[in-house]
Structure formats: C-alpha cells, structure tokens
C-alpha cells in the first residue's frame, strides 16, 4: 500500500478534512501543495452557501409506518370499507383486500390545523414546530431496495448513504467524535451507514443504543488494563519511538498523520465516554424521553449534535417493527407511545437549548402502508404515497404539505420524491445537491443522481 494508491494526489487532498484526525496530515499537504504550486480544483469541504442547519437527525422507523393511522385521515376508508374501487388497484408487494378504515380519531392541531391522530398526543402538542409532508413517494414496494433508496437514493449496493455524502461534503466539527453516527439496537447497519464508493472514513459509525454504557457501545473505546495515566505513559513511549523513527527516515505524511491520529484516539476515549453517557443526564430529562432504546437514541442524538456531530440516525428497532402486515391497530397502540414521547421530547429539548434552528430533524420510514387491508387486519407496503415530517433546521413549523388521493394511497398534490427530500436536506445544510459529486467508475455521481428538486415550499 502506498500512501496514496489508486488515488491521485488531487483526490487525496479532496478527500481529507472530513475524516477524523487528518488535521496534521491536511496541514502538511496544504503546505506542500502551496510549495509545489499545485493548485488543483479541490473538493471544498464545507457549505457552498449559508446553511440553515449545521446538523441533521434522522428518526427512522424501519418497516414503514402507516400514514392513514397517524397523519393522513381518510373518511372515505370508513365509507367504502371492505370495497375495492379501481383506484386502489395499485400493485404493492403482496395481494391485498378491501379498504381498511383507521380506528384512530384525528383532530386538528396548531395554528394551521394540522391533522394528527390520537396515537401521537405529544407530537400533536408541538405541531407548530413540525412540517408534515403527506405526499412523499418512493419507487419500490420491498423493504431492502426501498431502504436503500431511502438512505442512498438508489437500489445499487455500491451507493453511499446520504450521511456519508454529508460527511464528505461538510466534514465534522468535532475531531474527537465520528462525524456520522448511526444509533440502533444491535448497532444498526446496512445501506444507512454505507460509504459505498466514497472513501471508507465517511462511513457511519454504528452504535448500539440498547446499551447504556459507552464502553459497550463503541468497540475498543476503553483500555481494560491501564488507567489513563499508565496509558498516557505507554503512549508517550510509542510516540518517542515514532519520533525517533521519523527522524531516521525523514519527513513523511503517513508517519506524521499516524502520530496525530494516536493522540486524537487517546482523547477520544474520554470525550466519547462523556458524549455517549446518557446516565449523566438529569433524571427529569431522561424521564421526558422515556426509557426505551429509541428514547436513549433520541437523547444521545441531542448529546451528539450538541458536541458537533454532523449526522445522527436513530433507528427504531431492532428489525423492522413498523412492518404491520397483520394486527396493525393493536401494534400501533403498543408501539406509538414511546416513539411519540421520545420524538417529541427530542424536538422540545433541542428547541429549549437553542439547537433546533441549526438541526434538521427528519422522521419517517422507507415507505408507508396501504389503505387496503392485507390478511384482514394488516396493511401492505405502500411506496406511492406516505407521510414524513421534518422539524427545525429551516423547515416551516405547523404546516401540512401535499395530499394523497381520496384513500391515502398515492401522492397526488405536490408530490415529494425521496430524491426531493435528499435535495432539500442537502440544501438546508448548505449543499447544492447537483454540485456535490464524486468521480467513480468513469463518471461523476451525486446523491440525487439525475433527480431531485429542492422543496422550497417547506422552508422558511
């Protein structure tokens, strides 16, 4: 392995800066660049225009939450219950039956009267901070591809996730913590944190939020044998050896870079122990969020953005709990309370700390569910029309945007595709989605590929 194999010097310079602990290296390279008067068109790390948000948090509900039971009331479902009008003959993953009414009562909340069902009382109470989009749509009715679409804008397994793109575009603010953290029971994984063809350092760091001890969440975070002072002494020895070695060899990017990375790692042990320790929160705060893994995840998300982490994803897991092919009504009654409580607590907490303005929060699943039943008391996957919501970070509060058809099956008014969502999220972070590109296999790739429109209507 050379220091820069397969990468041109330009790409290498382009690629540093967003990762962890490349500061020393970056400084040196910048210096050398100047000395050699190499002036490549570098990939600029940082916003392209004044951003509305510095951080983003995704609350991801795997499986596909049901829009007609939460945000998108459809009286026609009751009126035509059990029937199957032609307009609901859309092909989903499985064979479906007739229209299936929602048993949940809706009310209008906030200054503009946004519909929210009785399942979500906490979110309803802060609806004026929330931008509900009822007209989301995506392109595949099966979980895995739909989730890949949701996270990376594409089904192909080679594509980077949006969190990786954001790290690549913006870098991180805290060199002692990963720039992109994925919280989920068991540690998350899959396309959500994939760096694909982007350099590996942009990959999301999976953290198991069903654990509450930081050393159980992050691999190799603690040294089990040495106390900090003894470890410092050991590290001093390593660095003395390294300095001697570098004197003998001569100045070298890698040698210097690794000396720096060792120091960063040493400090990271303590910084991360603090950042990931939810038990240090006051009891009142912990109670506001609740005690489920998802609640821990939401609370950790706040602690992390507070410390400069760019992107945090919180998975409601494990598995795909929101995939209610049967017994959906009971399931929602059981599952919504802690989700509702923790999601609302996060938004409230961010707001109270003055962080909501600079943090874009996005809530949703890889698709929604059908208004028609599956197996009598369930709902199938529905990519044609579903609800997501955003809060903070330049999104308007207290509005409802777009409409689905009479039955809540497909988006018909102001439809917002998954690419539009990506374009808009990048926009609030100060990135033009058409300009954030990476050269791979012969062409320049984007998160939004050839699609995506910034949805200015959603923004303040």
């Amino acid at each position, binding site marked *: *392995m*050379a*220091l820069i*194999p397969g*990468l*041109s010097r330009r790409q290498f310079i382009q690629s540093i800066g967003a990762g*962890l602990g490349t500061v020393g290296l970056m400084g040196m390279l910048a210096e*050398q660049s100047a000395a050699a008067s190499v002036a490549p068109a570098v990939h600029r790390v940082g916003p392209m225009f004044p951003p509305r948000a510095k951080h983003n948090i995704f609350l991801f509900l795997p499986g596909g939450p049901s829009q007609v039971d939460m945000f998108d009331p459809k009286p026609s479902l009751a009126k035509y*219950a*059990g029937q199957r009008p032609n307009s609901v003959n859309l092909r989903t*993953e*499985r064979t*479906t039956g*007739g229209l299936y009414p929602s048993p949940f009562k809706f009310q209008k909340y906030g200054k503009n009267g946004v519909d929210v069902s009785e399942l979500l009382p906490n979110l309803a109470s802060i609806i004026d901070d929330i931008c509900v989009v009822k007209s989301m749509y995506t*392109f*595949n*009715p*099966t*979980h895995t591809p739909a989730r890949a*679409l949701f996270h990376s804008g594409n*089904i*192909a*397994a*080679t594509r980077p996730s949006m969190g990786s793109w954001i790290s690549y575009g913006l870098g991180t603010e805290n060199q002692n913590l990963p720039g992109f953290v994925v919280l989920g029971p068991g540690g998350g994984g*899959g396309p959500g944190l994939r760096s694909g*063809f982007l*350099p*590996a350092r942009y*990959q999301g760091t999976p953290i198991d939020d069903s654990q509450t001890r930081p050393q159980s969440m992050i*691999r*190799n*975070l603690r*040294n*089990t*044998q040495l106390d900090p002072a*003894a470890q410092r002494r050991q590290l001093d020895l*390593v660095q003395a050896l390294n300095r*001697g070695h*570098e004197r003998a*060899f001569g100045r070298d990017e890698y040698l210097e870079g690794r000396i720096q990375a060792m120091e960063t*790692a040493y400090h*990271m042990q303590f910084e991360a122990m603090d950042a990931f320790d939810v038990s240090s929160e006051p009891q009142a705060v912990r109670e506001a969020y609740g005690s489920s893994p998802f609640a821990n995840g939401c609370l950790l998300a706040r602690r992390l953005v507070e410390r400069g982490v760019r992107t945090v994803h919180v998975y409601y897991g494990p598995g*795909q709990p929101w*995939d209610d*092919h049967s017994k959906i009504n009971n399931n929602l009654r059981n599952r919504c309370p802690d989700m509702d409580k923790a999601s609302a607590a996060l938004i409230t907490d961010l707001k109270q700390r003055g962080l909501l303005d600079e943090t874009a929060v996005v809530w949703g699943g890889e698709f929604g569910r059908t208004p028609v039943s*599956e*197996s*009598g*008391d369930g709902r199938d996957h529905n990519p*044609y*029309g579903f609800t997501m919501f955003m809060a903070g970070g330049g999104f308007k509060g207290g509005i409802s945007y777009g409409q689905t058809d009479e039955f809540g099956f497909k988006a*018909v*008014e102001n*439809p917002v595709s998954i690419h539009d969502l990506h374009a808009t999220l990048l926009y609030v972070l100060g990135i033009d989605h058409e300009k954030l590109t990476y050269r*791979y296999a*012969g*062409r320049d790739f984007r998160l939004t590929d050839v*699609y995506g429109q910034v949805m*200015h*209507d959603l923004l303040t």
Partner: protein
Amino acid sequence: MMRWALLLSLVLVMASAARAADSIDGNTLFEQHIRPVLVERCYECHSAQAKKLKGKLHLDSKQGIAQGGADGKILVQGQPEKSRLIEALKWTDPDLQMPPKQQLSAEQIHWFEEWIKLGAPDPREGSTSAVPASAPKRGMDLETGRKWWAFQPVKEIAPPDVKDSAWASRKSDQFVLAKLEEAGLKPSPKADRRTLIRRAYLDLTGLRPSYEQVEAFAKDDSPNAYEKLIDQLLASQHYGERWGRYWLDVARYGEDNPTSEATNPPYPFAWRYRDWVIKAMNDDVPYDRFVKLQLAADEMPGTSRQDLVALGFLGAGPVYHKDARNSKDVITTLYCDDWDERIDTVTRGFLGLTVACARCHDHKFDPITSKDYYALQGVFASVCQVPRPMAEVDPQTETRFMAAEQRLFYLSYAANLLRGEPGSKPKEARQKVERLAGEMDQIMEDMSFLKSQHSDMYAQLQQLARRPQPYPQRPTTQPVQPIADVQPAPRRGRPNANAGAGAGANAFGNRRRRGRGGSTAPFFEAVFDAGTYIDGSDQDFTMVNIRPGEARNMPVLPGGNPARPGEISPRRFIAVLSRDDSTFHEGSGRRELGERIFTDAAPLAARVIVNRVWAWHFGKPIVATQSDFGVQGDKPTHPQLLDDLSARFIAHDWSLKWLHKEIMLSAACQQASNPRDDAMRADPTNELIWRMNPRRLDAEAFRDCILQASGALDTTMFGISMDLDQPGNNRRTVYARIGRGRLNNYLQLFDFPEATMHSPGREVTTTPLQQLFVMNSAFMEDQASNLAEVVEKVPQGDRIAMMYRKVFGRDPGPSEVKLGADYLAGGGTLAQYAQALLSSNEVQFWP
C-alpha cells in the same frame, strides 16, 4: 455506471409511482394544451431533435423540464409567478423572450400557468431526452476510437539514451532514468540491504523476514544474492497468499450477498475459489489462461476438475434479492443489475473500460455503445449460478443436476414464501404451494438415480428441496373475505416479521441451515450455460425459469428501462476492440469472450494488468486510474515503459512471476524511499520515480505481521474461512471470511474494500478508530502477552533486544534500549512494552 437506470425503470414500470404527480385532469391539460405547444414551438431548439440544443434545455421530457437549462431551473412547481418559464413566455424580460420569433397567445400562456399551478404534471415516460440512446453521439465514433492510445498494439521499444549508463539494471530503468534526467533529477541511492530484504519479503509474501534471515542477507555479498532472494520468495507458498489476495480485490471476492435474503443466500463454497486463486498464483498460471478459466473453465477443453473451481469468479458474484411478489419488470430490473455488475467487473477489471456507463445510452466519452453493453449482457443473461460437484461426473448428469438445483431452490423459496405469508388470497396461495411442492417431489423422484452413485449430489438436492410446513389437518372451508372486520384464523408458523433483516429473509424458513459459515461439502460455486427467463404470467407471483443450453440475445434498453426494449443486440465482443465479426456462437459466449479479451484486446488487457502489478509493487500506478483506460482516465506517466513492459510480458507467455522479477530487479524498485529535499520540491508526488514510494502495510499484512511477531501466526494454508473475530483465529488474514453485507470490523477499519464491487485499488486512511484498535483491542493485548511470554524466557538483560528482533527484525539502538529500560523500570510490564512496540509506526510502515 448508469445504475440510475434501475431507478428510472422502476419509476416507469411501477405503473403509478412516477405518475403520482398527475391527477387525471393534469394529464389531460398537459396533453391538450401543453404538449402540442412544446412540440410545435419549442422542440426546434430544446429537444433531442434540435440541430443545435439551445441553453442546454430539454423540453421534450419530464426530466428535462425538471432539470432546467444552463441558467438553472425553469419552473417552480405550483408557482407560475416564480417560474422563469412563464417569465420567458410573457416576454417581460427583454433578454428572455421565448419563443424568440413570435410570442405565444395569451390563452396558451394561461394554460402554462394553470399547468404549473397543478405542479406541472408531465405524463411523458421514457429516458430523459438529455441522454437518449438515439442522441447524437458525444463520445467517440468507432473510427476515432480505434486510434485511442490504450487500444494500440504493444511492441517492444528501443530504450532511450541516458547519460548515466551505470544506473539501470533492467530495461525499464532506462525509461525511468530518461524522464528523471529530462527533469534534472537524480534517482535515489540503492536502499540498504536490510531495507531491501524486508521490502522484498513484504512485497512478495506479505510477511517479514526473521532477524536471522535479515542478518544473513546483510552479510551475503555474492553478486546475485538479491536475485536469489527474489527467486526464493517467488517460489514460496506464501507468495500465492499475498498476490492471490490482490487479485481478490479485482474479482470482488465475497462469501455472501449484500443482503443475503431468501433468493440471495450466502455462498457456502466460495472459499474454494479463493484457494484456487492462491494455487493458480503459486503455479504461475499464465495470466491470460488465469482469466479465461475464471470466465469459462467449463468450456475450455482439457481443463481439470480442480480448475473448474475458477468459475467461482462468476458463481459467487453478488446478486440482489428478488422478492417474487414483485412484478416481472421489477424482477427483470434486478436481474439487469446483477448482469450489470458482471459487465462492470469484467470490463473494468480485465480491460480497464467503463462499459457499464453504456447501460442507458452510448458511452459519453469512450467509443462504447449501448449495443456493446447489451451484447455483453446477453452473455451473462445466458448463465445460471449454482454449485457444481467437485467429483468428476458425466456432463449430462451434471447439467441435469444443476438445472435441478436451480429449480428446487426457486420452488422451495416460492412454496415457503406463499406458505408463510399467503397474503390476502390464502386459498389461491395454498393451491400454489401444493403445486410447487408437487413439482419439488417430482424433481426429487426424477433425480433419485443419484442416490447410489452420487450420494453427495443427492444430499445437496435434498438440502435445497425444503418442503413447506404442512397445512393444518382441518381444511379451510370458509370463503375467504379479505374485508376489514373478518378476522382470519391465526396463521400458524408465520415467522416473526420483525426478526429478519428484510421481508424476504423470513420466506425461506430454513435459510439458516445453509449457515453463514461456509460448508466443506464437496461442491464449488460455479455457473453453467442456461438462459434466465422471467415469467410474469401470474399477476401475483413472478417465476424465474432457466433453460439449460439456451443462450439469450438481449435487446438494447434505452434509458435502461426493461419495459421498453429496443432492438436486439446479439452477443458479441466490444466493437471498437474487435478485429472482425466478433459474434459469439458457442453457448453463452463466455469462452469466446475470454478469447477475444486475449486476442483482439490483448494489448489493452496486458497494459491493464501490467499497470496493476506495477502499482502493487511501487504503491503507485503508471496509469493512475487503474480501471479506467478510457478518455476520462489518466494518461500513463511512462507510456513507453508501459508499452514495452506489456509487450515483453506477452512475449513471456503472460507470466506474472516473470513480471514480478523484472520489476523487483529493476534499479527503480531498489531505490531508497527516504525523502530528498530537492526532489520533493520538484516532484512531490514522485511521478518520475526518483525514489521508491514508502508504503503502509494493508489490513492483511499488518495483522499477519503482528501475529508473526508474537509467535502466534498459524501458517496452515487453504480451507474454509473463519471470522477474524473468532477467538483463537490466528490464521493469515487471506483466510478470513469476507462478508458483503457486513464486513468484519477490523477489515473495514483498515481500508479493506467493499466486496460488492470491483475495487480498482485501495485507499489508505489513518484514523483514530484504527488507533483505538491498536491501543485497546483484545487482539493487540493478546499478541502483546504472547510476545511477552516468549521474551520473558530470556535473561532480563537481553529482553529488550529480543523484543526488537521479534518485532522489527533488528537490534535496538542505545537510545531505544534506554527508552525501553526506563519504561520497564517505571512500572510498565513487559506485555505493555510489547504492545507499545507493536503499536509503533515502524511496524506498519513499509519503506
């Protein structure tokens, strides 16, 4: 790689997703009032038919309108007053008046405003006209393309004159020196002997020499000592472990699939392909044959059964999960993605060409057409991935067996899926399950003749033929009413929907029996010629059928959209590289594809592999974009050197060992790697090779060298893979299990490439998370303890020196002894000291 074709096609085929925007009124409005005006008044300048496209604006597709033109977006959905399109139509801006010659009528403009208010619904399907297959080519035509440098024949070139006649030791050095002299630079002095032997060991075996080996070499002043060393290392069995692993990056070797769901479970026999690669490297199988075997060993006469294992290159290629409940077009698109991966890996990997860029349209830069792409797609649409038996078996029986494997696998998947999740038509589902299970029984009966002579094969079929759970005794007599208030009987045996990674994960109820850990049953991952056909005749359930021996010619899919096939592109080789009619006639055409790569395209194939091998030795390629020798790629820094070496490589029968020796014996490769101020200023990236590039050990060599230093390295070769995190796994890293869905944490941390795609070369990162591993992991602590245990056996005064010999293969200097003594005297244990040494830069550095 125009993978977005997939997306686009899904948009189109999923009937309504793409049209989610459109109410019926909107569409009607568009058809009656918008489209006719666009056609009549705008297309002349703003469409694919335009003689000269104006303002980079396409109005002849939904895409084009959404994208806007050179000055950006032209409309804001729902807001005509903010849309530049309306501004242009209204002629309010004197600089923006469209159409320029005559304004539209007020009524026509009104309709455009109404249309935008509705969100600009646009029912037009098809690829964006910005990139239609029929668009005027922006890439090269064939004639020009044939003149591209990388396609020219390679021939030996007379070396240039150089002033310093003493430096060069191989022919390649003269090309290097001529460029250095031109730039006024001198090469670096020869590396000292201790550096040279360490470099050579790591380079050719991925392991370090022992202290004794270093010292013996340092003292050996015979003139051919270095050459002897290289010969000895090339003959070492460890050579194949090192260089086989390099190849596995090119071949994106992995043992499962990105999602590993019901239809794309892990490959339990993939490790045999890895072992085959190691053996082939050690045997110095000529590179052309090495590649041809991986494409078509089964179709090359006289090939041994052992060499058929090479087919794992295709047999364990990554595939996507195809949930059979999706429509025919969705399933077809997923197959197209699988085939796309093969085209990409074969063309970038072997030819340095980005042919996959031509999936939706002709290549925008290189002389590669969509027809070329689909001609190759036909090859991969005509093969089926199934395990083959290790034992010799007559061809007819083997073909029947393989066809049965595929069929049983699919029937079993389908039956279990419908049994577990019957959906809203349980009665129909039950009938289908019974039919599918019946066919499984029939196949098992037909294949029962295997029991006596080939019991392993019969067992393999039995394992695939998983019968769905029997239905309860009591037959369902109630009519099925998929209506809300009718509670269906609880479905027994339905797997927990939350347990799996994806919906399909549950469908193949016994997927876990195949396990993730691999199998030693006598089979290997492979392919055989059988056309793949997708049968969408059942609206609810899409079947996949194969036809053994039948090859498919595929249609060009403009925009990559399988719902709108274009003309058939018969299987053949890439036109610009073909010397004559290259149509494939034998089966899928795999063998002919391999032949053409090494006849018609031999110069390109040779340049590509010579460049890769050069890069693996020097840490820096001659052509920086190792898998793109096209227009968008970089030009060679030393074109004559590359051509000459490639020509001689071919002349030496494509022998990689010859190539290694030629490179390793060069003066350029024996230079010291220390920085020099003058040269750093003149050529900071070492483009001219004024020094050897200092490198860093990759994930494999780093771990192997730590194990070697601690004395724990298990050098057993070959066999089933083990997870790196498995306690007591002290084998070389090349034998680690490689996951495509979840890569081992250590490998991921140290820049191992994702095995889902061809890797043109690894990037190298230096991150704090790597250092946390080095400082705190159980692996490092264990190896430090192992090392301390060994060193503790020698007298106290010798321990530091002993430790240095084990870790660095050298003696410590006085200041290093003092550092160590001070550390130990201050309370540090020998194990902690060992870990400090193992953590230091000198271990990972490869000067």
